């Protein structure tokens, strides 16, 4: 269950990264896209920290 959450967090993070880079094609949507990418980074870090070996 926890492993599934970690893999889902990584998948969502990579999707958010690609969407964030894609939003840089237009200046209007660039800031929102970068906030999406930052959210993806937060997801990846949280997904890593719930791992068994790091934080009990």
């Amino acid at each position: 269950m926890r492993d599934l959450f970690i893999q889902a967090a990584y998948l969502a993070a990579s999707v958010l990264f690609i969407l964030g880079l894609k939003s840089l094609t237009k200046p209007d949507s660039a800031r929102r896209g970068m906030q999406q990418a930052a959210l993806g980074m937060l997801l990846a870090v949280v997904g890593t920290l719930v791992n068994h070996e790091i934080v009990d």
Partner: protein
Amino acid sequence: MSPIFVIELYVFVLAGFVGYQVITRVPPLLHTPLMSATNAISGISLVGSLVAAGSGRGTVTTVLGVVAVASATINVVGGFLITDRMLRMFHRADPKPGAAKPPAA
């Protein structure tokens, strides 16, 4: 060739295509924030350094992991902050008629 290697090769090749298609559509106006953003996103190595620091395989590993976590965190946070500031300047310095303006921060 093991099946896992083949799957990883698929992921690598498809990721190469996705990256090429996304990057080539960015206009030259936004190349500087693109560089800054890719630098910030490359801080995903923070995940690997977190795993290394938390694995508990000896003092050397932990110390090097903590140094790596600190460096990667500086890279991620600073990179996203600088990208956001850069894009805010873009909105102010380049007003276009008809485009929705964000409130001045």
